């Protein structure tokens, strides 16, 4: 019976792969969305908008800087929450000595420079000679 069904399927019709494609497509969309949300660690970070910038790939290490509802500064390094005191050590661990790789700082536009500067100094203390500031793409900016 089973042999007959396989034989008939092979000769008369093809295996229907449409449901498989649908499920795989749904999984891809799901993981794309989850990956996108996970990269910001749920923090509402609105970077400053600029009309210029580099379109290169985002560095592997991204430090998010935002202010929480309670008013405290929240930091996360590639999705992992940490404190300012532990940021330097975390960067040194991930970048190595001498540091290899790049770090991007995605800070909220509503922050003061005094909130962001300690993060920049932590990057400098970790041995980095440059960082990348993340900005929101605003090609229509006239300023």
């Amino acid at each position, binding site marked *: 019976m089973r042999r007959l069904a396989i034989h008939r399927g092979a000769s008369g019709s093809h295996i229907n792969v449409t449901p498989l494609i649908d499920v795989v497509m749904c999984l891809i*969309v799901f993981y794309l969305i989850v990956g996108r949300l996970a990269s910001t660690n749920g923090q509402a970070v609105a970077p400053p908008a600029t009309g210029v910038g580099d379109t290169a790939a985002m560095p592997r290490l991204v430090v998010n800087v935002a202010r929480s509802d309670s008013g405290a500064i929240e930091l996360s390094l590639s999705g992992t929450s940490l404190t300012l005191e532990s940021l330097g050590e975390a960067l040194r661990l991930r970048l190595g000595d001498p540091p290899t790789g790049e770090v991007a700082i995605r800070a909220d*536009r509503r922050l003061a420079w005094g909130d962001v500067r300690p993060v920049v100094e932590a990057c400098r203390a970790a041995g980095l000679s440059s960082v990348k500031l993340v900005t929101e793409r605003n090609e229509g900016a006239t300023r």
Partner: protein
Amino acid sequence: MLRARSARVMHEQAHGPNMTPMVDIVMVILIFFMASAAIMGPEWLLRTALPSPKAVGSAAAGDVTPVSASVQVVGGSFRVVLRVGEARREAGVESVASEAASLAREFGADRLVVAIDADAEAPYDAVVRVHEAFVKAGVTRIGLPAPR
């Protein structure tokens, strides 16, 4: 032909139109737009140097023109003070782009080395806008010097 057509009509009457091809195409279009959005990204990157105090001193001695751009908070508002040697210019955040372009024309964008500093109370947005102004002017050597 007639039999095949009538079979399709009978199938549609019994089960409705086949939605599977439409779902497949919509999924592919959705993935295309998501992937292109992920690659293009809604974000840009501004590369900023983190010079050591020693490097700042050597830049001043070389064949370059050091520019200091300082975002200062005065009362409730803020201004940008540009220093080139002994010369000092003031600009609002809105007009810093034209000042940066003027400096680039005067000294050459490739010779300018810009150090951006700001008061702790200055908005981070203003610091980024000063950086953007010099990038627009064609300056590539822009950095955030260590606080003194």
